[in-house]
């Protein structure tokens, strides 16, 4: 707002006891012939007998950035010089230069909260007066229409209720990032629509994210748009897979993600909503819907959401982010094209060799025990299983190397017809002695889970892996 060249601005509300207590002071200032502008947030009839600017619309209070009433601002040369909030007699005397101001009043009374900072109000005012430009189409629904049903009716939902994306909620979500709402973060398949930070934020609201999750969602979208991840094919395939989101680094702890007990399960808001937001963006911005371009025969429940963070409390464990060349203090999102969870139990192995042999046998089941170099696999190694490897001095590289050597298959066992099973790889491979079950970087190990339980998880990947399909991708999170 345009400030007067010189004088005082007073912002108050009648509802505030301090504002009414110090009413005599206002007249004293006015009578001192100082130029005083009184602005009321709730009732311009108060203070009685004075010229009061009606600011029940709160535009002036918003532009003056008022947090507490009363606030007295001194202006000179059209600029604010200083301000005081509440009633601090000493400061009011200094600002007005009136030595006997409010003589009979107590020295100190705290003020009340400005109406501009009441819950939900800052966002409303920023939309109204703050010059915020949200460019998305605005849909008006009446209060008679249930807003959650309205979201269903428009086809935005994955089947579960959505948080209605009001401009206020979206604005609050956008506070979670320093990036501009209009920035394009990727081109989303299948319709190849540009996704702005704003569109991602709208979908993050619907998914139930908190604003501080938004940078993770944005990085996940960027990762999904990398060519190596092949999101278009992953969406279109009849296979089970969808994006599995793995978060590393300090942000995972800052936003309270779960890497411990039930890390792959329900109950943690960040885990649940970040994965869901990515899926909703593919659905709503990219237009990828089941029955449309998503042709999955069965799908998997992880296509609602599949997101967790890696356990990083054991310095001997090389995290996924470190493995991909990132520093331990950087935060990253990795995406793996994965199916559901296949449980792996081994409660009796006490040596790394026994455990590795045991795990390798279970890994053969990924996609089909006869398939080689087809689906990748993500193994989520639990603390109790890792302990067995760790005690014997096996680090991640050693575990992987041992598993690879155990996972070679003789061609004659896996070709079509072998074992009276028609499925298999082409007969030409029958003479090959050793065929690796997984591509060289197709077996991925991460660490998560509760402290008790000699169980780990095998998450099989999309059978179209590597350059002909999808590869694990990692993207650094930008705040």
């Amino acid at each position, binding site marked *: 707002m345009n400030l007067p060249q010189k004088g005082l601005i007073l912002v108050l509300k009648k509802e505030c006891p301090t504002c009414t207590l110090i009413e005599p002071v206002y007249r004293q200032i006015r009578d001192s012939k100082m130029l005083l502008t009184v602005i009321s947030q709730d009732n311009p009839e108060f203070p009685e007998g004075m010229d009061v600017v009606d600011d029940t619309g709160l535009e002036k209070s918003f532009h003056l950035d008022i947090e507490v009433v009363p606030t007295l601002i001194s202006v000179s040369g059209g600029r604010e010089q200083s301000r005081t909030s509440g009633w601090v007699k000493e400061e009011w005397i200094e600002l007005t230069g009136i030595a006997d101001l409010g003589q009979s009043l107590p020295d100190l009374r705290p003020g009340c909260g400005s109406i501009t900072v009441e819950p939900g109000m800052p966002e409303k005012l920023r939309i109204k007066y703050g010059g915020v430009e*949200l460019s*998305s*189409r*605005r*849909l*008006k*629904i*009446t*209060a*008679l*229409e249930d*807003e959650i049903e*309205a*979201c269903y009716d428009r086809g*935005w939902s994955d089947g579960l209720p959505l948080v*209605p*994306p*009001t*401009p206020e909620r*979206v604005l609050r979500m956008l506070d979670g990032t320093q990036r501009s709402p209009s920035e394009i973060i990727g081109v*989303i398949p299948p*319709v190849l*629509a*540009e*996704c702005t930070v704003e*569109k991602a934020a*709208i*979908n993050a609201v*619907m998914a139930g994210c908190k604003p501080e999750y938004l940078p993770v969602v944005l990085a996940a979208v960027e990762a999904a748009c990398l060519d190596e991840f*092949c999101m*278009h*094919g992953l969406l279109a*395939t009849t296979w089970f897979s969808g994006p599995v989101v793995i978060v590393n680094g300090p942000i995972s702890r800052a936003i309270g993600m779960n890497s411990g007990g039930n890390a792959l399960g329900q109950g943690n808001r960040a885990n649940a909503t970040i994965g869901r937001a990515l899926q*909703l963006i593919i659905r*709503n*911005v*990219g*237009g990828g819907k089941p029955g449309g371009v998503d042709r999955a025969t069965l799908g998997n429940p992880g296509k609602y959401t599949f997101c967790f963070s890696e356990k990083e409390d054991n310095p001997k464990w090389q995290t996924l982010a470190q493995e991909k060349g990132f520093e331990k203090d950087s935060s990253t999102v990795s995406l793996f094209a994965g199916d559901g969870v296949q449980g792996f139990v081994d409660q009796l192995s006490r040596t790394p060799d026994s455990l590795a042999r045991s795990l390798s046998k279970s890994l053969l089941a990924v996609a089909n025990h006869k398939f080689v170099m087809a689906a990748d696999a993500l193994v989520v190694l639990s603390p109790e299983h890792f302990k067995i490897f760790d005690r014997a001095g096996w680090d991640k590289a050693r575990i992987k190397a041992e598993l690879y050597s155990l996972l070679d298959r003789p061609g004659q066992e896996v070709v079509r017809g072998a074992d009276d099973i028609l499925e298999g790889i082409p007969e030409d491979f029958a003479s090959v002695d050793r065929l690796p079950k997984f591509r060289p970087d197709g077996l991925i190990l991460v660490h998560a889970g509760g402290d008790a339980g000699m169980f780990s998880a095998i998450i099989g990947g999309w059978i*179209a892996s590597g350059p*002909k*399909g*999808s590869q694990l991708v990692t993207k650094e999170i930008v705040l």
Partner: protein
Amino acid sequence: MNEIITLLDPTAELAPARIELRPRLKTLKGANIGLLDISKARGDVLLKRLESQLMEKGAIVKFYKKPTFARTAPVELNQQIATECDAVIEALAD
């Protein structure tokens, strides 16, 4: 109860793209027909059958193949088909 609730559109706000079909070929005789194998198992079986039927009707048949069914066809391949053929048949099989 006449309060209006505003929701922001979470979609890409694309009007449904309307793609006009190319005019139907008046005759197959002498027409260049592309057969695109998307690299799915046994797609070639279907295409071979189509080839013989098309040739009986006097068409000139050309074969094309996508490197992988998991990805969309490379732009170069689309351009090659578009410049060499009057129509294309894409086979999906398993």
